[in-house]
């Protein structure tokens, strides 16, 4: 299996959001220009190195994420063209923040071959946006959605629930206004407080800011019902899409498809054999016998250091099952068959437990094991069962 999904990481922002623990740094325009030039040079060199060896030829989806890729301005379409020189992906997503997604940039991204825009909207209430350190307003966000639609992109927007000051009515307003702007895709993320973020410090001082799980559960249920009503069907824990607009790149992450991540902190997953094939470009890669799958993260901007993790065949399959349970379509018959072969009766027991606890059910038409509504909101219980299969 060759790499079918390519991820590029842009670790720059104009301002860091209060909840964010991603690898990114907030820079003023002058510093950004300097840093970005250096960073992009290294990243484009990496793209060429892989491309020249034919390792990007089978890439079908590309995703440029961050950080905030759109802070790169006109250098961003250049990066897109650089990638397109080596492959012909059917889906090419670029993350964008509303305040840096301008008419001119939108046009050149469309021309350079971006097909999908994922907008970090988060909320359509200005006070909620400023409380989490976003530097755009609701109006700017709605204009960005409109602009992306005009340029012919498949448009996604990210929304967050459980924000400080958010309540049932304001969440419903955000959803309704977002859906009224006709995006093709919506992602709904409950806010999580990550250690070391400014939000975590605020929560430590004022525990009432800690998102309430019950409220977030309500928010997720409301989102599901409103999205479905607007023709966006759920296909994963956080993801809703119009027919044909599900994110193929993200589905690759959840279905055991090999992916390559380039740039600082970018993560890759592939078979141990595939890693051996590209070992000359991944310093330190040395899978042992019995390793079926490799996961690795680029630790620096220059791709000198990587952190590796190797999974056995059992672990890789348990991981596939765990990730399949995130998706509304669940585990297909082919995956179930492989699990039965490898795990034997243990797998049947785990399925029994998942069924008994109401976390999953059998979709007899598709022959798939699919998560129930409880298995959706209480997913960790279901994933824990599946990942438990990895233990010998």
């Amino acid at each position, binding site marked *: 299996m060759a790499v079918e999904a390519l991820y590029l990481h842009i670790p720059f922002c104009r301002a860091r959001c209060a909840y964010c623990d991603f690898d990114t740094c907030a820079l003023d325009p002058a510093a950004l220009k300097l840093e970005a030039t250096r960073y992009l040079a290294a990243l484009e060199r990496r793209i060429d190195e892989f491309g020249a060896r034919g390792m990007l030829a089978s890439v079908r989806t590309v995703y440029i994420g961050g950080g905030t890729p759109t802070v790169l301005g006109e250098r961003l379409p250049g990066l897109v063209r650089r990638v397109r020189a080596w492959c012909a992906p059917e889906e090419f997503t670029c993350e964008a923040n509303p305040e840096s997604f301008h008419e001119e940039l939108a046009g050149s991204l469309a021309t350079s071959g971006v097909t999908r825009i994922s907008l970090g909207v988060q909320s359509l209430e200005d006070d909620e946006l400023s409380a989490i350190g976003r530097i755009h307003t609701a109006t700017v966000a709605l204009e960005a959605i409109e602009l992306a639609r005009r340029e012919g992109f498949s448009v996604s927007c990210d929304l967050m629930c459980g924000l400080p000051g958010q309540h049932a009515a304001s969440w419903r307003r955000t959803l309704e206004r977002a859906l009224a702007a006709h995006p093709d895709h919506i992602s709904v993320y409950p806010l999580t407080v990550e250690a070391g973020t400014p939000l975590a410090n605020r929560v430590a001082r004022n525990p009432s800011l800690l998102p309430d*799980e019950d409220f977030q559960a309500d928010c*997720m249920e409301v989102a599901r019902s409103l999205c479905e009503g607007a023709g966006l069907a759920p296909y994963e824990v956080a993801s809703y899409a119009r027919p044909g607009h599900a994110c193929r790149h993200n589905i690759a992450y959840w279905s055991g498809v090999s992916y390559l*991540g380039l740039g600082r902190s*970018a993560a890759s997953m592939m078979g141990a054999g595939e890693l051996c094939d590209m070992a000359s470009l991944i310093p330190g890669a040395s899978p042992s016998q019995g390793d079926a799958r490799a996961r690795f993260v680029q630790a620096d901007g220059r791709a000198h250091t990587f952190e590796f*993790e190797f999974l056995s065949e059992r672990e890789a399959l348990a991981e596939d099952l765990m990730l399949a349970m*995130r998706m509304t379509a669940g585990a297909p018959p082919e995956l179930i068959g492989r699990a039965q072969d490898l795990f034997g009766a243990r797998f049947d027991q785990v399925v029994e437990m998942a069924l008994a606890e109401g976390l999953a059910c059998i979709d007899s038409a598709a022959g798939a094991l699919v998560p129930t509504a409880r298995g959706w909101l*209480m*997913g*960790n*219980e279901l994933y824990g069962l599946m990942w438990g299969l990895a233990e010998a």
Partner: protein
Amino acid sequence: MSCHDAGKSSTMTLMNTTDTSHIRNFSIVAHIDHGKSTISDRILELTNTVEERDMEAQLLDTMDIERERGITIKSNAVRVMYTADDGETYQFNLIDTPGHVDFTYEVSRSLAACEGAVLVVDATQGVEAQTVSNANLAMNADLDIVPAINKIDLPSAHPDEVKLEIEDELAIPADDAVCVSGKTGEGIHDLLEAIVFLISPPHGDPSAPLKALILDSYFDEYRGVVATVRVFDGGIKKGDQLQMMQAGHAFLVDGVGVKRPAETLVGELSVGEVGFVVTGLKDPEAVRVGDTLTGALRPTAEPLPGYREAKPMVYTGIFPIDNKDYENLRDALEKLHVNDPSLTWSPETSVALGFGFRVGFLGLLHMEVVKERLEREFDLDLIATSPSVDYHVYKTDGTMLEVRSPQDLPDVTRIDHIEEPYLKAKVIVPPEYTGAVMQLSIEHRGIMTDMIHLSQKSVEMRFDIPLAELILDFFDQLKSRTKGYASLDYEFADYRPSELVKLDILLSGDEVDALSFIVHKDKAYGLARGLCDKLKEIIPRQLFEVPIQGAIGNKIIARSTVKARRKDVLAKCYGGDISRKRKLLEKQKEGKKRMKAIGSVEVPQEAFLAILKVED
């Protein structure tokens, strides 16, 4: 007279002599935080017993738990050689005593080994409750008392007033009180001189048959039980044939020595001295605190007075969370038992918790310490269940049953009546707190029997109180309601009939035997409500709603509900998140391992001791 130099680096002789005039056996007693450990440390340092670079705080407390909690659990005896201003070298045996009401008997035996006590009083705090109770203990043991006023380096020190307090409240002459600072070392030399002059040397007959008191014992894998002893008559040498007068065991002495504080072998422990005896015995119960050691061939006529068999006061179930650890738990109990012979246990089975043991303890602190040691030193995850006392259940058929676990209580229709153990408790407290103590006593079903004004500043209150009431939170409550001034001492009184009922707890409709406990019927409703609320806080929300009910027989008397958890999912899970996600799941699984699945309900360890956290 013989001299031995057994320590490799020691340049001093350890002076074994049958002349007792150069021996001083004493203990240091104080109210908590008045500086007992600091002064002990300073004495070891100033007499060059321990080099400064080897000093660590609370040197005599060797267990991690002792150091962490700042309490002494095990007795310890250290020999210190002091060359006094008169040019003579004296042998000091400093006997460290436990400092908690659970260990009252052990303290009394340690004090019986002393001729004197240094009574440490904080120069800024003055005489406090434990100063009074410790001074009383020392005076009852007929000890010479050397008052030492500590912390005189502090600006708020008022040593002259403290001297007056010592005279007024303790009736101890304070002319000779020594002013010291454990922190700076000031006055420690004067204190050492005072110990020489104010504490009597031991008396005894070196040629009489051996009579030695066992203060404590510990177990050594290679040498068996090692007993800490005080020789009253005769002497002990390696090769002597000895016997325990109470427990009856005989043995050949494998070695004798002293702690400085490292173990150092000596040729003989002679009359008046304190040291250790290697018994070679493998059964820890053969060596009992308070027993008298004597010659097997030439025994002494009478054992030393004051011996008491250490009887457990409180029983709890101890269960491994993972039933596979049952054998490991048994081994661990056996290993702890060798250093703590007061520990008793018998197998217990619970429907909810599987196989475990009903373990007897001297008190709740003892229980906490043992459980913590089992978990830490033997790497076990354990559940302790509600503490219980030893009830006497009289059945309708006329027989009596000893019940130490609520599960063993017969059906109500077969019970004629139940008797529970009562204690005679003695509380010493400043007069302004007598009302608070009386209130507390009433809440705990105590009956006041006497109230004696000891001085203007202290009152002794005597109560008869059920042991079961005392073992819960009585001591902590007493401390908090008297701002730490009260001291508590108690002894067993008798068994008395009580209206007791068994309170059951149901989780999701099923009775959980390990959560049941026996309670006075007047308190059942309040406790049931308190316990249901407390369990609701402790039991985490899970997939299903968990109703919690308190019941007596078939009657539900309290109820609360743990709502079902609605959301537990990490919504963002893309390329780089997947490894992290798996680690999170593994962590959740580890967390669950520390809980006990009862039916479909995951119950954390602390739920089984929730009764201790219920406020009245």
